[in-house]
Structures are given as C-alpha cells and as structure tokens.
C-alpha cells in the first residue's frame, strides 16, 4: 500500500499539518476507556458471578470478535459521513427506519451506562471517605461527582481529553504494577488453565462475555475523527486495532495475574472481597497501595462517567442536529462549541437517577451499577451486532474497492461471533443480574429495548411521510443540514450549480 501523495500547495500543506496521526487517534480512543474501573469494578465481579476462572479467555474471545468487527466497520467508515455513530452505519446499511430504531436503543444504552457508574462511584467514595472519618451516604458523593461531570461536560472537549489522558496514564501504570506484582507472587506457579477452553462454559459464559464487551466500549471512537486523519484508509484502522489490542492486553494480563496470585481453586471464593485487586497489592507491596488503588479507582470511575457523558452528549447532539429527536439537543455553547444542550440533558438524567435510587433506598452497587450497567450492556451488544449486519449488507451491494477480507469475510465472521455473544447474554441474562431464572427483570430488559426499537422505527416511519427532508438527513449527523437542504430543493447532495 502506498503512502498518500505529498500535498502540492500552501493550502493543502497547511491542512495536512493539521491532520491527526495514529497516536493522536489512539490518545482519543484510549482516554474514552478507563481500565481500572473495568479491572477493579468489573473483573472481580465477573469471578464472583461466573464462579469460573475463564475470565481472561472471555476477554480473548471478545477482543478477537471486536477485531473482526472493526475490520469491516473501519472499511465502511471510509465511505459514509457521521462515521462515529453506529446508528449511522445501520441507517446506511439497512435503511433509515432501522437506523432510527438503533439510535433510540443506542442513546438509551449510553445514557443508562453513564448513570450506572454513579452507583459504583458513590459506594467507592463512601468506603474510602469513611476510613478517613467522613461519614456521608453514597448519594452525596455521587451527586458531587455528578456536578463535576456536568460542569466539565459543558466545557470544550479538548480540556476533558487532557484530564482523561493524565488519569489514564496513572491508571495503566498502577494496573501494570499490580499485575507484575501478582505474577511475581504466584500462589501455585503460573497457570495456563484460565486460557483453556474448558475454563469458560455453562450459563455463566454469557455473563462473562457481556461484561467483557462493556470493557471495550470506546474502541469505536477513532472513526469519529476519520475526516481529520492523515490517511483515512490506514490511520483509523490502525488506531482502532491498537485500541482493542492495548485494552485486551491490560484486561487479560490483570485478570490472569489475579488468578495467579490467589490460585485457580481459590479465586472464586476470594472474589467475595470486592477490593480483591487492592487487597493483593496491599499484601504484596504495602498497605499504602490499598489506599492509592482505591483513590485511583475513584478518579477512574469519575473519568469513566465523564467519558460516557461526552459520548452520550455527542450522540444526542448528532440526533438533535438531524432533528430525529428534539432539535434543541443540537445546540452548542457559543463560547466553547461544546454540545451544551445534549450535555445538560444527560446531566439531568444522571441526577434524576441518583435522586430516584436514593429516595427509594435502592442498593447503589447491585441495583444501580450492576442492574443498570449490565442492562445497557445488552443494548450495546445488540447495537454492535446490528451494526455488523449493516456492514455485511452495505458491502454485499457494492464492495467499493475494499478487499474481500475487509468487505465480506471479516464482517460475516464478526456477525456470527457477536450473534453468539448476544444469544448467550440474553439467554443467561438472569446470571448476569444475579437473579433466579424466570424472574421478571431478565425478561423485562430485552422487551424494553425491543419496545424502544419499535418506537424509534415508528417515529422514522412518521418522518418518512410527514417530514421527508428530515428523513433524508437521518444518519448524516453534522452534515444532515446539507442533505436536508438538498432534499428541500429535490437535488442530490453536493449539487449546487444547478439549484
């Protein structure tokens, strides 16, 4: 593959200098991930819920599935506008009606996932500050973080990126330190049993895979910057692959290291301690590391809340710009150009969730973090699967000079893999929630998402008949006004001279 041709003019040189390389895109996508939240808040829970040691294998399976997905996803991103949002892929691959249905499911899932983090944040802060002598309920800490996230969310995105980058660097360093320490203090020597195919099975497999997918959310963000990339064909694909690879390495190494330090036979029982990662660090490195780890977990969950807040706000903003939902969600801040209306909306939703859970006296860890977080995970898996199908259908119509691997083979394998993950997650959703099979809640969540999708599809059908110019802009995000203007004058997009 040849490098892009050198710019031939002053203007093109200036524009080229402003383009982003792989490392810049990697910076944006990795700052959207908060690995310590996944390791300390998720992996230990996975041991407890699954009752198995196959967590590293679960991460391997999901990393490979998402890598296959990303091959077709980044290939299609080169041919469409609004390439940062999966509903846009669905609108272009399967049609605008499924696109709006997916947009409603996506917006709800991101919203719920962000709100769920306030439960983990509140309970972590409550424990940490209680040890320091400050006794306050979880919701007081959650509301303080909510206010901070709400304020930062209405600032320019680059400010947030710098905050997130510093937190990420510290987090990764501590995770690697803890992991190396765990491997250096093995209970029974280094065991490869966690990577054996028999280590993951039964009803718990679906729970493990669903939780593993949530840890990778954010991997799709390099496509958002496709138009700013130095080489749209290679830079975005490399950054996406590197994001999945780096996150997979961290998750696999950390979860495997915990098993190594505790022992294959003891890790499930030891996971009753939600602070297992930090307890091990305290035993091996000194008690100060427990506090350091917990403080970093608190900042990590706050960063995760901020990251998902921004993702959700941008999603709502793009939908507002398209007028697919309330058009006022498409307003920006004059001073910072941040999507301020969408950001405030997400802040209000998060605040209502915290207040509601506090008033009803619900448990922040089980009823907010686990229930709401895992439920949103089901919505996001459905979104990735539908997006994968859209990629297959899109390239089935026309390969657009993409390779057979990128346009046909990898997307098809990704759909098969994600369909398997979706089936296991829905079928074993009761395990994920920790309730009895046949309970109302595990059945209610998929039904709720189905109803949302149907409502979205109904709204799209209304737009098609009642507001065709809005319907034409579906899936185009920021560029929707161009498409809508073209529709008003019944001239194809981009044609201006004859209008």
């Amino acid at each position, binding site marked *: 593959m040849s490098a892009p041709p050198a710019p031939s003019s002053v203007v093109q040189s200036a524009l080229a200098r402003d383009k982003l390389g792989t490392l810049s895109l990697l910076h944006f996508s990795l700052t959207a991930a908060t690995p310590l939240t996944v390791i300390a808040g998720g992996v230990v829970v996975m041991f407890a819920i699954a009752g198995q040691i196959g967590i590293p294998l679960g991460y391997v399976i999901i990393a490979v599935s998402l890598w296959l997905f990303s091959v077709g996803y980044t290939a299609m991103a080169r041919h469409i506008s609004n390439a940062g949002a999966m509903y846009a892929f669905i609108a272009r691959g399967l049609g605008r009606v499924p696109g709006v249905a997916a947009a409603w499911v996506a917006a709800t899932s991101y919203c719920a996932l962000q709100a769920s983090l306030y439960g983990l944040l509140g309970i972590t802060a409550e424990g940490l500050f209680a040890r320091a002598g400050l006794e306050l309920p979880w919701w007081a800490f959650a509301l303080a973080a909510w206010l901070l996230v709400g304020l930062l969310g209405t600032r320019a995105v680059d400010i947030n990126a710098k905050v997130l980058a510093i937190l990420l660097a510290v987090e990764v360093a501590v995770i690697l330190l803890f992991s190396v320490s765990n491997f250096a203090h093995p209970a029974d020597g280094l065991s490869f049993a966690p990577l054996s195919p028999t280590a993951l099975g039964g009803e718990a497999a679906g729970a493990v895979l669903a939780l593993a997918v949530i840890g990778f959310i954010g991997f799709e963000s390099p496509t958002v910057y496709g138009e700013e990339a130095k080489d749209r064909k290679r830079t975005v694909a490399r950054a996406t692959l590197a994001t999945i690879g780096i996150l997979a390495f961290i998750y696999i190494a950390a979860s495997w290291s915990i098993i190594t330090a505790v022992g294959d036979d003891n890790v499930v029982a030891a996971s009753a301690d939600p602070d297992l990662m930090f307890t091990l660090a305290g035993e091996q490195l000194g008690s100060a590391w427990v506090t350091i780890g917990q403080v970093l977990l608190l900042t990590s969950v706050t960063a995760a809340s901020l990251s998902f807040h921004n993702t959700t706000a941008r999603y709502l903003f793009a939908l507002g710009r398209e007028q697919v939902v309330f058009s006022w969600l498409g307003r920006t*801040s004059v001073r910072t150009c941040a999507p301020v209306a969408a950001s405030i909306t997400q802040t209000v939703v998060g605040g209502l969730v915290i207040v509601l859970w506090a008033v009803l006296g619900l448990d922040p860890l089980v009823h907010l973090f686990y229930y709401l977080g895992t439920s949103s995970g089901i919505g996001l898996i459905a979104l990735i699967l539908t997006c994968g199908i859209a990629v297959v259908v899109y390239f089935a119509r026309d390969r657009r000079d993409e390779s057979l691997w990128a346009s046909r083979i990898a997307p098809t394998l990704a759909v098969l893999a994600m369909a398997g993950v979706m089936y296991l997650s829905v079928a074993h959703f009761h395990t994920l929630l920790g309730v009895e099979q046949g309970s109302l809640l595990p059945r209610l969540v998929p039904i709720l998402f189905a109803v949302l999708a149907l409502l979205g599809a109904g709204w799209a059908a209304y737009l098609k008949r009642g507001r065709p110019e809005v319907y034409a802009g579906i899936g185009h995000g920021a560029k929707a006004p161009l498409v809508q203007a073209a529709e008003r004058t019944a001239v194809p997009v981009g044609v201006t001279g004859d209008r």
Partner: protein
Amino acid sequence: MPDAPTPRLIYDAFLITAHHDFYKPAVSPHVSGLGLGAALLAELVISGHLAVHAQGGEDLVFPGPRGQPPQDSLGLWLVELVRSEQDQLAVPQWLEYLAIADVQTKTAEHMVVAGLLLRSERRSRWLQRTQVSYEAADALIAQAPLARMRRQLSTMDQRMPLVDAFLLAVTEAVGLSKPLYSQLPSGARDYADGHLRVLPAPLQTLRGHLIAAVADNAITGNL
C-alpha cells in the same frame, strides 16, 4: 443606533462573532474562524471574484467570472490562493484552512487599517509573551450589525439585502441565535427562514457547509 459604516460582509461578521459585548458573548475562536471564512468566501462569490460549483459530488471553489482582482488585500489574498491551486478544493477544506490560517486576526488587522478597531499589545511577564487584543474604535458601531439585523427582523417591512441575509445565516450557524432573536416578534424566525430559504445556490452551499463544520467541531472538539 447607527447602521454599520461599511457594507463589508466580513467586517460585520467579525463584529458579530469575534467582538464580545454586553448583549452577546464572543464565539469560540475556531468557530469564529469558520464563520469569518464563510463570510469572506460569500463576499467574493457575491462580488463575482469566486464561484462555487458542484463537481464529482463535491462543492468546489473556483475563480469567479469577474476579471478584475478585488481592491482590498483580504479579498485579494484569498482569490490569489484559490487561483494558485492546481486542483480546486472543496468548500469544507477552504473553511477549515481559513479557520487555521487565522482569518480572524487577518480580518482584525484589516479593520485596524480601516479605523474600525484599535490594536493594543500587552506584555505578560508571567507568560513571557506579548498578547495582542483588538477593541472597537466605537462601541456603537461595533453593535450596529446585530442591531441592524434585529431591526429588520422586528419590523419585517421590507426585503433584507442579500448580504444581510447571509450575515443572518452566519450568525445562526455560529450559535448566536439567542441574542439575535431575543425579545423579537413571534414571526421573526419565519421571516428570517423565508430569506434563508431563497439564498442563491452558492450561498446556500456555503451556509450548509458552515453549519456542518460547526457541528463537526462540536463532536470532535477543537483539535
């Protein structure tokens, strides 16, 4: 309040987007650059020095039919840049280039020469650098473009000039709808929409790409 002393679209766009006063905030620098870029392109399209046509699915900027070069240095600079391009560039590329080429400062310097702005320098010992700022020579003149548009939107008694209709489009696109429409009669938005809908095709194209560029900036941040 007096009307603006100059019909120049880009001067009015600068006073609306980059000048901060009691009635409205200054727009973020990158978005202001995009808005000023659109205003400069529009001004040269209206004067016939540049043209916007669709070709190969893209909206490209071409040298216009008017033979004589622009009289002022700002317009001349852009027209010469467009002429020097071997392959014509698309409108979004020009908007992005004008934003990163600091068209805001170039416009401000131009307005200093025209006597509309005053340039002041302040040496910061802490930052070890000189900060340049531009203040309006006359605060009433600085407020005039927005006041003029608000007057037209409130009286709604005659057709808006084309230049003001595009200025309206820029003001809305950069996010200043609130100060523009605040406390105006209920039909003001419909009156404005009526003007925006009938903008000539090249100006419609510039407006659409400006709106899209501002939204892109909101999604990807100030890269």
